[in-house]
């Protein structure tokens, strides 16, 4: 039916380069991208397994100076994806009809693609993977394997046979691959009953259901698998995904060791890593913060604290000797400077003490610090205590676990049953409300910086969760540089990686404590998504970039999101070669996770100052409203300050991330991708025209490049593109199966006739 359209994506979408920057593929149109399959190098840990369509001229001001090159990097990457696996037996029979005659199952040998350093741990054959299609399930036979990196199903989906879109496959994670870190929950089905699987099993299930953190749901039927193989694979999977792990067992170490011969970093990729003093100086210079703030090397070699980065920025008059006093606690650290000179600062609270004498010492220390930042040249400082007056991490955790359940859908019936009460389910998860509160807080802080010329000091126990979230959101809204791809990556590097966000604990990569698992970074990405969704032209990247970024949280090839602190990363990545025993991670403070036990000390110490500085909340509300309304009443300057809409109807579900694996939610030939691809086609056309003009100018009557080959019919892409490859193959519509909910008080209306006249007498 011509349902599948060929697609040549923008910005290396086709390339789906394994590691490091999508932009790397941007320049090598048509050619094979030299960046493909590059292993991580020291300079560039940026994960971009699947690059995204980029926005056309984002920064005309900058781009204009490059002559005609204002179209940026919207070019096609080398399409050469990995070869599709060979077809194996595809079953159209329902499981019940299958005779377990082994000989009939003509299973061909399917090769398992292993990454450098990856090892096969266990496998089971004759596993049936269920595929949802047209509200009935069918099965595909294959082999289920578990390596030290992923769980993989080696069957063959017939879609891979004739699917042009396989070139958009993610090169690291195939359609049927689940990295061990991506596994969220494992269920077993015993006699039609679904149970969570963990620990040692006495009985092995006939069906395995795997819920993933990227919200995929896999169903594997083990009924036709040999018993010992079932035992091996099920216990293997459970062990390797759920048992606590040592840091040194993370796959990225085996990968890094095996893939030594890494190529040089792409010079085009200018993500600032903030690993050197120079990086911080540049940032100070860029934001003109260098008048009042200085980069310090007091923590070089992590002498002061293993929680802090080696280099960071503090107010110029602050004596460097103060930093080690409390291992960096109680020190205002610079995040960013606004055009008017106001700065966004963050500070981790001082350790809680009982001893009066110690308290006295802390108090006088803090007083000193506050004096420093209140004196000229500094503007007035407003302290924003994120530990006590804002969201708790537990709120975020609870909301997200409710929210994600709405998308982990086992079958069509479940989809339509929940559809009827969708909005109230969504609301009861509070996830969207939490997003709104984060955006609102960021607007409030923006208002202080922008309109009231105040410095803002964010305060949090370790300054590594909500501080990262709010400070980076403020920067995305205020600093257009952070809305470019490189700028955004640098921002994440600065605020999250160097800011010491405990990715290892927050993602629970080592399976050590479920309590610590809080999707703070994901919440940040979701907030940014709202901004991207509302103001797409203000960003160089698209939602696809954010979705891919969120996926890379669970791919242990990129070290970016697999450490708790820069110190932990440095020691481990360096010492790995020397095979020194790894020290247990010290810097994962368990205390203070639950905010109920509010830090009275800080309140006591800061109480006076805070009350002096903070306006009454009503006034704040008014200021906020005025600022918010006046911004929204003006036309948007995409290169300036950017505020989100935060009213009820404006906060939306990040559909691309959350609905992408659900076949029922697929719009064939529709969705935002339809307009996006039109836009990209037009960009390519404009670009090829431009090239022609350039050629003419240079008097070259050269051969015409086949520009039209880049342009493809795009209307038949599915809304799930580029993630799920047309899960629903037929053109049959999906129809809701559940009926109408009771109308309640409107029953009497419902029973009435449309017309008041009786038709009986006609």
């Amino acid at each position: 039916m011509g349902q599948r359209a060929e697609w040549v994506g923008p910005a290396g979408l086709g390339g789906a380069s394994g590691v490091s920057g999508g932009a790397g593929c941007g320049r090598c149109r048509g050619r094979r991208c030299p960046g493909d399959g590059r292993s991580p190098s020291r300079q560039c840990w940026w994960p971009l397994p699947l690059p995204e369509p980029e926005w056309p001229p984002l920064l005309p001001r900058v781009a204009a100076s490059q002559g005609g090159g204002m179209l940026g990097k919207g070019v096609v990457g080398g399409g050469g994806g990995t070869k599709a696996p060979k077809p194996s037996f595809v079953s159209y029979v329902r499981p019940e009809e299958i005779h377990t005659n082994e000989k009939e199952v003509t299973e061909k040998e399917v090769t398992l693609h292993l990454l450098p350093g990856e090892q096969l741990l266990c496998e089971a054959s004759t596993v049936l993977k269920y595929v949802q299609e047209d509200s009935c399930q069918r099965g595909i036979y294959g082999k289920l394997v578990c390596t030290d990196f992923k769980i993989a199903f080696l069957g063959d989906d017939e879609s891979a046979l004739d699917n042009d879109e396989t070139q958009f496959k993610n090169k690291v994670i195939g359609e049927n691959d689940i990295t061990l870190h991506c596994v969220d929950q494992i269920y077993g089905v015993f006699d039609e009953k679904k149970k969570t699987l963990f620990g040692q099993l006495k009985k092995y299930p006939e069906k395995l259901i795997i819920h993933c953190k990227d919200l995929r749901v896999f169903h594997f039927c083990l009924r036709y698998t040999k018993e010992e193989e079932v035992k091996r694979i099920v216990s293997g999977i459970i062990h390797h995904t759920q048992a606590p792990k040592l840091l040194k067992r993370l796959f990225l170490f085996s990968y890094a060791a095996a893939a030594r011969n890494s190529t040089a970093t792409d010079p085009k990729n200018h993500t600032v890593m903030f690993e050197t003093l120079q990086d911080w100086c540049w940032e100070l210079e860029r934001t003109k913060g260098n008048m009042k703030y200085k980069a310090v090397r007091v923590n070089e070699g992590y002498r002061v604290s293993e929680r802090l980065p080696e280099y960071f920025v503090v107010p110029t008059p602050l004596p460097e000797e103060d930093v080690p006093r409390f291992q960096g606690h109680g020190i205002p650290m610079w995040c960013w400077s606004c055009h008017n000179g106001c700065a966004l600062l963050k500070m981790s609270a001082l350790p809680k003490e009982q001893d009066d004498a110690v308290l006295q010492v802390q108090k006088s220390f803090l007083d000193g610090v506050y004096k420093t930042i209140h004196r000229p040249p500094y503007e007035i400082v407003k302290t924003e205590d994120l530990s006590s007056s804002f969201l708790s991490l537990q709120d975020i955790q609870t909301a997200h676990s409710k929210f994600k359940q709405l998308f982990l859908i086992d079958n069509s019936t479940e989809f339509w049953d929940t559809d009827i009460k969708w909005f109230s389910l969504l609301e009861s998860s509070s996830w969207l409300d939490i997003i709104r509160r984060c955006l609102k807080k960021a607007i409030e802080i923006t208002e202080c910086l922008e309109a009231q010329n105040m410095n803002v000091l964010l305060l949090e126990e370790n300054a590594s969760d909500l501080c990262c979230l709010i400070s980076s959101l403020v920067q995305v809204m205020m600093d257009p540089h952070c809305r470019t791809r490189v700028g955004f990556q640098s921002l994440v590097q600065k605020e999250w990686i160097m800011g010491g966000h405990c990715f290892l604990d927050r993602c629970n990569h080592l399976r050590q404590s479920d309590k610590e698992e809080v999707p703070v970074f994901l919440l940040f990405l979701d907030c940014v998504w709202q901004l991207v969704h509302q103001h797409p032209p203000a960003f160089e990247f698209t939602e696809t970039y954010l979705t891919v970024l969120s996926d890379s949280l669970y791919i242990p090839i990129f070290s970016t999101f697999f450490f708790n602190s820069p110190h932990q990363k440095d020691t481990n990545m360096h010492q790995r070669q020397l095979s020194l025993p790894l020290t247990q991670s010290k810097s994962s403070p368990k205390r203070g996770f639950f905010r109920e036990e509010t830090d009275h000390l800080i309140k006591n110490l800061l109480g006076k100052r805070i009350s002096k500085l903070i306006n009454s909340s009503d006034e704040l509300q008014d200021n906020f409203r005025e600022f918010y309304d006046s911004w929204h009443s003006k036309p948007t300057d995409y290169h300036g300050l950017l505020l989100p809409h935060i009213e009820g109807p404006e906060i939306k579900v990040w559909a691309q991330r959350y609905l992408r694996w659900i076949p029922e939610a697929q719009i064939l030939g529709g969705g935002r991708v339809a307009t996006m691809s039109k836009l990209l086609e037009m960009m390519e056309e404009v670009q090829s025209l431009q090239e022609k003009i350039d050629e003419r100018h240079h008097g070259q009557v050269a051969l015409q490049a086949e520009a039209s080959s880049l342009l493809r019919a795009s209307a038949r892409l599915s809304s799930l593109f580029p993630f799920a490859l047309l899960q629903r193959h037929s053109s049959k519509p999906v129809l809701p199966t559940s009926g109408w909910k009771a109308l309640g008080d409107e029953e009497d209306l419902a029973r009435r006739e449309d017309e008041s006249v009786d038709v009986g007498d006609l």
Partner: protein
Amino acid sequence: MASAPTSKYNSHSLENESIKRTSRDGVNWDLSEAVPRLPGETRVADKEVIYICPFNGPIKGRVYITNYRLYLRSLETPIFAFLNEEKFNVDGWLVYNPVEEYRRQGLPNHHWRITFINKCYELCDTYPSLLVVPYRASDEDLRRVATFRSRNRIPVLSWIHPENKTVIVRCSQPLVGMSGKRNKDDEKYLDVIRETNRQISKLTIYDARPNVNAVANKATGGGYESDDAYHNAELFFLDIHNIHVMRESLKKVKDIVYPNVEESHWLSSLESTHWLEHIKLVLTGAIQVADKVSSGKSSVLVHCSDGWDRTAQLTSLAMLMLDSFYRSIEGFEILVQKEWISFGHKFASRIGHGDKNHADADRSPIFLQFIDCVWQMSKQFPTAFEFNEQFLITILDHLYSCRFGTFLYNCESARERQKVTERTVSLWSLINSNKDKFKNPFYTKEINRVLYPVASMRHLELWVNYYIRWNPRIKQQQPNPVEQRYLELLALRDEYIKRLEELQLANSAKLSDPSTSPSSPSQMMPHVQTHF
């Protein structure tokens, strides 16, 4: 922008009218006065009165006493559309020509004929004069069938599939009643319809109502096609609620968006209006109709109670899904003109043009609901429609504005009596004379592509730009930034093409050998336009 001429005309039009009329008598009237006076005639007094007319009932007016006469001027102003003197360079009344539209569908053919039996609206006063019926049914048959269908709205063809020749047929409910009456002619007629398509043995009947309502309708003489009477038909109920439920639902939508928009409980309050749930059911019904006709290869008969509310929604939406022609600007105008206006959707009763009784039980936002469904579809398929959101909003604005005659009156016969096409301007004149404003730049014309929207709450959303457009806080960026960027690129492309042509001209002049030029402008242009 629409309001400016309206108010201008509102304040002066009456005078203009009276001046025109009287000046024909050759009498000089004083222009500044409300009452035209003869030379020497002076006003004595005037008073507001209600005149009880023996023929037309009470009329509100003002009585003027002069030294010459008593003069009563009615204060009841006619609907503005009759006074509107706007001129457009396109005549919107010519957009829809039923014969042409049926010819486009390949009709008549050897199974279906065009009948003029309703030329003077004596078969059915709420149907159009021109109907398409099975070739094998005689006019006499039609008359007998009419006695068994509510308000004589017999099954007639709305749309025929160009390939498999399955049809969408619309009508009203059969008059089965409590006693379970049967009518051989009706049964035979449906069988004739079924036989026009030889691919499947059953005719599919979609009754738009919930099952219980259809049963309850028996009490008032209506009902549905029972299995035992109609052996060759399969009946499904689509569970779409009646006009009263829809009206209440919209009222609740109004409550949650005005004056304040709920913030943290937005979603649950939205859910409590049920508005999107109704949209979902209407879309689901239409998808079923379209799917049956397209892949089920079965002809479909659609009705509700009278066949002018839910039926119009279902047939027109299904046709929009099936036939890409209706997704163009003129195609959509034809669809509205055909399925809604000519087939007697009671616009006057549902909207209440010029009627003060706002609590009237006949009011219901059925047409608005249809446009909302279209909007949901255009949202899901942003490249499939030639028109943009502004087009749909403009239609809705003029559904209520009375500036155009398009949506006045309940049916074609009434419009003909009032000479609407002669005395008023069509909305399509406004739109078609300024089409660019209503065009979707992303539109990609695709022939024979069936569009199935996903009728899930996950994809349905409240039409903020329509329902909440007056709230300054919710104000959406206009135009849409993605669209804006696309238009910029389009402009850039055109500029480059122009520059390239100029360069080529310059080059060929320099070389004085145009044949060596690798791509002449004439080659260039088609290349550029291939993907539009």
